[in-house]
């Protein structure tokens, strides 16, 4: 049951009557080919052999959706040839794929449990160096398990607070910031019961510190993605706006042919954000039958 306060808060921003209805439906199962160990051609053939129907995404050939809930009971899952991952969570690495292919030093700043990290390691073809950091020691175990299972050789795990991270110049930084997680309510409906507007403000304060630090870790010409799985503009456009006011950053346009993206909002409750935040993308669940997400691509 969606809280009334949540409905009231987002009824204007979501500008589409399908939003709340979609949040109460079950999210389709999705997964990604782990190209360290397999290819999407092999995965298609194997699943066809099992008689499991899967649909390849036109916007990302390594992404698949299935109505079968038993993806985890396949040999390919056991072998780490596929990784069960929400479609929208694949987008931050995907938008910087070209940069990752040529990068020698990459930071995944809030890496656990490793969905994006394993994807990044695969896009780097297991070459160069990928620093997978997470502040939460309890989540490091899952990160380690997933990286080992995926066969990531180029990945170094660290457990530090990003705000005090040693200075190095990274080619690419992926900052998938801790957030109020409103966008994963289709996967975890408990979040409806614990949803509280106050949490948003606490996250926003931390995210503003993290985005500036992450930007400072980029080399000149380097690229960063900032993402959250939440709808709150305070955690999204406001955070990107904060970076623009503090640093000389450029927000790049994001395009993903075959996947509907909405532009960032420049206005929220009496607050105005810089026009550049329109280049950020909001992903509304009802548009692509996914979770909710926000991504900004930042260039130094």
């Amino acid at each position, binding site marked *: 049951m969606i809280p009334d306060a949540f409905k009231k808060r987002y009824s204007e921003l979501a500008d589409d009557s399908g939003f709340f209805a979609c949040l109460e439906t079950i999210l389709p199962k999705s997964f990604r080919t782990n190209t360290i160990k397999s290819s999407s051609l092999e995965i298609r053939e194997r699943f066809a052999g099992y008689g499991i129907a899967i649909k390849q995404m036109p916007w990302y050939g390594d992404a698949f959706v299935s109505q079968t809930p038993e993806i985890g009971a396949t040999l390919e899952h056991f072998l*780490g040839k596929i990784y069960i991952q929400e479609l929208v969570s694949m987008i931050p690495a995907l938008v910087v794929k070209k940069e990752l292919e040529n990068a020698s030093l990459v930071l995944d700043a809030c890496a656990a449990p490793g969905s994006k990290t394993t994807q990044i390691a695969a896009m780097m073809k297991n070459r160069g160096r990928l620093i997978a950091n997470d502040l939460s020691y309890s989540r490091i175990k899952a990160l380690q398990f997933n990286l080992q299972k995926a066969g990531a*050789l180029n990945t170094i795990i660290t457990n530090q607070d990003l705000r005090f991270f040693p200075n190095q110049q990274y080619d690419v930084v992926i900052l998938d910031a801790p957030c109020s997680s409103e966008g994963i309510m289709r996967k975890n409906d408990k979040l409806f019961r614990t949803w509280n507007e106050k949490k948003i403000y606490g996250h926003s304060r931390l995210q503003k510190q993290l985005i500036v630090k992450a930007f400072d870790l980029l080399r000149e010409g380097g690229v960063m993605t900032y993402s959250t799985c939440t709808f709150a503009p305070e955690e999204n456009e406001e955070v990107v706006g904060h970076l623009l006011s503090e640093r000389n950053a450029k927000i790049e346009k994001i395009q993903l042919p075959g996947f509907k993206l909405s532009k960032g909002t420049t206005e929220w409750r009496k607050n105005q954000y810089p026009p550049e935040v329109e280049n950020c993308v909001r992903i509304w669940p009802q548009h692509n039958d996914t979770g909710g997400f926000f991504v900004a691509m930042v260039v130094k």
Partner: protein
Amino acid sequence: MILEYFEDRFGIPKAHFSEYQLYQGHKGKYYLGPKTIDRPQVISPGLLIARAEKQVKPTSNFLQLFGHLATKNILELSKPDAKRYIEGYDLRIEANADPGYVIVSYSGNFLGCAFLKDGLMTNNLPKAKRQQVKYL
């Protein structure tokens, strides 16, 4: 010593890993990772490939990734035995492999590590990796 062991025991060529660096961690753990690390407080520097205390024990993750390079001490299982191996069972088996650690395979897939002695294949899959597999 670790990479030489893999070459000697399984025929996995040491030269294949020249792009990477071997690191020794705590409790006899060996990792294969990037050439340089240049930072303190590292939790793990790459892929855990072996534990070496009394003897060298390859990890299942390593064998899943590089098993295709092996030329010997590979134990091919039938479909029912492969399912039981993945679920974590030990198996009584007639095997054409030397006693010691073996690479378990099924239909061209490298499943992981086991220890073979006197016709008993002791399952070396970590508990966290064991699972029910319906489709194989």
